[in-house]
């Protein structure tokens, strides 16, 4: 076990999977010689060569399209989109092609591939280096969507994603790329199973659902709530599709109160789905209306980023609402 950052965890996962499976290849903009703009693919080209660590021309659609062609042929490509904000030229490839390949061909052709991309705000990146695009992908059948919230999960989930027989969108919370460091296993067999949520803090009074960088915010909010005498539970979803519905329902059944937390805009956001599922399946155990804490329904701002981003006090207000209903 060693103390590493989320960036190092991603790098380690890639190295381990590339060592154990020659079919794993990495491609994207600046992933080779430069090692990625966030250094996630550092040193890969030295170890695995330019044929398996490919610096591509600047075309997101081309990166994902080519990766699809590699995957149907039998490779396990791990394309990187430099910022999730730049993924849209590849949207057609992702939703029309990658996500539907297995279904439309009756499983004759499949796309075992992982699209890695940093997402989210909090790094002063403005409109085009800050967005959270998960809802666009969770809405598309055939995509598995994974969001780690710490180095341990990042490594274990990425390794599991690379071994998955189906395509995975792997969203890396770039705000916490470098902190905090954490002990992560070096065992080759270590993976974190896709589709399982984790209770990060056990509580009895209310549940906060979160993922990615918002898990930390949820935990802070619980600390603040504790001072008011309320004992919160934090459910880190880890995988958005397939959702660990069982854990969600179990948690709200215990607490009877739900605050959902995401940094993406609120309207038609992923958390709205959580809210709907709880309303459909567990309304009888709920003691207060569900509250959603989310980004505002505006483009992601630069200077006023700190206002846009959900913070612990804002979450506490929602907790207050559900606790005092």
């Amino acid at each position, binding site marked *: 076990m060693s103390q590493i950052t989320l960036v190092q965890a991603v790098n380690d996962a890639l190295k381990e999977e590339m060592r154990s499976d020659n079919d794993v290849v990495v491609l994207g903009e600046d992933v080779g010689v430069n090692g990625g703009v966030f250094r996630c693919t550092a040193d890969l080209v030295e170890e695995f060569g330019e044929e398996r660590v490919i610096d591509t021309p600047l075309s997101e659609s081309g990166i994902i*399209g080519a990766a699809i062609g*590699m995957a149907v042929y039998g490779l396990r490509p791990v394309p990187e989109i430099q910022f999730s904000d730049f993924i849209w030229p590849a949207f057609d*490839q992702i939703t029309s092609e990658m996500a539907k390949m297995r279904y*439309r061909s009756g499983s004759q052709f499949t796309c075992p591939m992982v699209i890695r991309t940093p997402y989210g705000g909090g790094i002063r990146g403005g409109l085009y280096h800050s967005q959270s695009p998960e809802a666009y992908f969770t809405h598309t059948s055939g995509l598995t969507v994974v969001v780690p919230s710490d180095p341990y999960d990042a490594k274990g989930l990425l390794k599991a994603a690379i071994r998955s027989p189906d395509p995975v969108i792997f969203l890396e919370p770039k705000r916490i790329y470098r902190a905090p460091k954490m002990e992560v296993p070096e065992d080759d067999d270590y993976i974190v199973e896709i589709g399982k949520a984790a209770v990060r803090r056990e509580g009895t009074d209310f549940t906060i659902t979160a993922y990615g960088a918002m898990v930390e915010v949820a935990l802070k909010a619980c600390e603040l709530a504790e001072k008011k005498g309320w004992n919160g539970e934090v459910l880190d979803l880890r995988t958005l599709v397939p959702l660990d519905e069982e854990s969600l329902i179990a948690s709200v059944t215990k607490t009877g109160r739900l605050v959902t937390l995401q940094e993406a805009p609120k309207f038609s956001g992923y958390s709205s789905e959580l809210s709907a599922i709880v309303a459909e399946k567990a309304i009888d155990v709920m003691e207060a209306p569900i509250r959603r804490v989310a980004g505002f329904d505006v483009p992601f701002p630069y200077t006023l980023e700190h206002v846009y981003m959900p913070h612990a006090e804002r979450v506490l207000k929602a907790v207050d609402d559900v606790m005092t209903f």
Partner: protein
Amino acid sequence: MSRKDGKNDGEKRQGGRKSRSKQGTPRGPGSKRPKTPPKTPKVERNPRENPMSGATQDLLQVISEGGKALKGKKSGLSEELLLGMYRSMVQTRLLDERMINLQRQGRIGFYVPSTGEEASQVGSALAFEEEDWIYPSYRVPGLFLQRGVPIERMVANCFGNDADLCLGRQMPVHYAFKDQNIVSISSPIGTHIVQATGTAMAQKIKGSSGVTAVMFGDGGTSSNDFHSGMNLAGVTRAPCVFICTNNQWAISVPQEKQTASKSFAIKAKAYGMPGVRVDGNDVLAVYKATKSAVDDARAGKGPTLLELVTYRRGPHSSSDDPTRYRGNQADEWMDKDPILRFRKYLENQDLWSEVQENALHEELKAGINASVKVAENAPQPALETLFTDVFEKVPPYLREQYETLVQDEGTGHEPDPDAAFPL
């Protein structure tokens, strides 16, 4: 093709484009004309006047339009292969006619005819080896037949029944044939072009001697992924053959509204690869050009772009009425029938006769009829196929949706008799 006219045309258009980009506004009603006056009169939009259509003297040919072997040109193919190609071409035409009839009778939902383009499909198909991978367009049934796809599989797909390898999930003609390395077809145009580059790169990475070929139309060259795919293949020297079947129409849009380039083949230049214009109605020329490109790719000499110049004699699809946008222009192309041309060639070589022709038609029609009979009586795909193959394993939430469906509505869903593709 008049090279002089073509050159002037290019210069004039370039001038116009520069001025437009300076002004920062697209040309449209009310917008200012370019400051620099054009050097030549306005380009005539009529396709018959267009340097790219009609004229064939700059195209690679082996057989004359009258069916004679051109001087010094030999097919290099055995009698068996020549007759096999002819068979696939006739089979393609007969399948086309039958499927369109079935669609008109409401017995299948949709079809994409390829009448007049048989040479481009069959000639290419013969150039590939078993290990090669193909990304087809939706208008190349002749390629599938020539490559050994059983016709009953294709007919089953058109009926969307449980014998369809795609389990009725796609509209007709969106085939996928893993056994022949023919990758699944989708409807968005051009997306498969860059996928083909990726497969070719993968072949290289895995040390295979296989190559990848991709088919698309003139319209496809305007798509994002034509650029992405050609560019990436040029940079990586991937063993990929790009085959543009220029049938001169993208639904209602003629080729000269698709590009200001002098040809589609010339676009290869920008990507550092050779581009070859071929008479797409000459099956032997198509074979020869494709074989040469495939051999180059296999030998590590990198990718090639082929432009097979042919003509879409029929509608874009069973839902399209071409008289709305091109009148009766197709008539001029009727005497450019690639099947008739090849038949005359075979007859000139004493390889074919009227008796053989009639026998072949009878045999192929009987085969198609038998396939239709089987397909029409086959059951529709099982209800659970609605939920399978989304992922390798059916996840709990999809299982729940399936179980709820069966519980609420049972399993006896009959086909909707009024369903028809509306476009």
